[in-house]
């Protein structure tokens, strides 16, 4: 099996590479690239994302044909794709970080700043928080409800269709922290930094 981690200059992806390499050991061939041909021929895609919504979308769009290739892969052909952090947020129609920016539009909804109740809650939401599993998910196999995952973000994805939500986490409000539709997966938390339990999420994705 070939799995591609999309390298589109979206910030620091070393941790994603390290954790996938650890889980994939000898079982899966990992490629880190933005090469359209290689992406097209892979079996699964990981779309990381760090920094702002705008900077990630801009970087992705600066690589000619990348957005269309990803859409064809994940939406038209329904092949497995996992978006992590801003990688997930980009599934939305629109994001409001830095400036109003058009997202990939794969799952209707918006990405806006977490309401921290007038400073009552610190932002970014950094650290370990429990996930509340909302529906059976292929990437949460053998993962107990209320497991701890590592978060670091100030913006949240608010999908219109609530049935895509596979988990939420409670901070200043219930924040969507994982979505799933067909073979499209996204986590707001960082499985690559969430210790053994996070590696299990990665393992589940690789075993799909």
């Amino acid at each position: 099996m070939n799995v591609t981690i999309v390298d589109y200059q979206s910030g620091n992806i070393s941790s994603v590479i390290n954790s996938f390499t650890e889980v994939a050991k000898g079982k899966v061939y990992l490629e880190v690239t933005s090469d359209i041909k290689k992406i097209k021929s892979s079996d699964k895609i990981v779309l990381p994302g760090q920094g702002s919504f705008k900077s990630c979308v801009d970087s992705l769009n600066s690589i000619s044909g990348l957005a269309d290739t990803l859409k064809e892969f994940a939406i038209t052909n329904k092949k497995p794709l996992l978006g992590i952090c801003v990688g997930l947020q980009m599934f939305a129609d629109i994001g409001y970080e830095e400036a109003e920016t058009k997202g990939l539009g794969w799952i209707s909804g918006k990405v806006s700043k977490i309401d921290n109740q007038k400073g009552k809650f610190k932002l970014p939401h950094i650290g370990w928080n429990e996930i509340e599993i909302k529906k059976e998910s292929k990437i949460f196999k053998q993962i107990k409800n209320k497991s701890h995952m590592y978060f670091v973000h100030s913006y949240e994805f608010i999908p219109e269709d609530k049935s895509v939500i596979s988990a939420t986490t409670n901070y200043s409000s219930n924040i969507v922290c994982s979505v799933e539709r067909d073979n499209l997966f996204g986590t707001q938390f960082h499985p690559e930094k969430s210790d053994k339990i996070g590696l299990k999420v990665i393992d589940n994705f690789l075993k799909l």
Partner: protein
Amino acid sequence: MLKNRIIPCLDVKNGRVVKGINFVELKDAGDPVEQAKIYSDGGADEICFLDITASNENRETIVDIVRKTAKECFVPLTVGGGVRTIQNITDLLLAGADKVSINTAAVKNVDFVKEASKKFGSQCIVVAIDAKQVSENKWEVFTHGGRNKTGIDAVDFAKKVEENGAGEILLTSMDKDGTKSGYDVDLLRTITNSTNIPVIASGGVGTLDHLYDGIVKGGASAVLAASIFHYGEYKIKDAKEYLNSKNVSVRL
């Protein structure tokens, strides 16, 4: 509910841990990679390396240590000490660090914080503030391990780094550091009340109760400690169980 983080800090000099853990199971007491792994397996919520290498020639060693550690520890890794340029940050992040902490360079030029957070995202920029009390309810920023006075008010500076994009503040009391008499809770409370970003408490931990004070009385989002863990007095697990028994939420 967001859990309070326990962060063990390892001081690294020329590639070796200074004041290392004295566990019998350790093969090499000075190997930072092995020690980080013990902490990570023991339930540390994050690991911090502080590079105290004096010379620039040995800067490459910390990058190499980060590279090796990041392949074995899958919890967040923060690296500080001597981070002065965008290139330093790039090198550390590419090696596998998740966050870098900037100290002197931020004091010298706060625009560096802005530039770094714009380039890499606030999520990976921590500003380390070393503060010393100068009068009642007044603290000043110091650099070079507490030797150099800057004349900058710690509260003003904390607000300024927040405005410039810092994602977190690592706050060390220079009065308390190394004393084992507990955090400077007043300093912590003052800074946590005047900023809206998470604050990591540092400097002075001698007992598990001090961790409790940092979180509950000081309002810290995370507590950093070095010697109580290094010398094997307490394990990370002990700290978490203790805090949990006093109704402080931690990741168990």
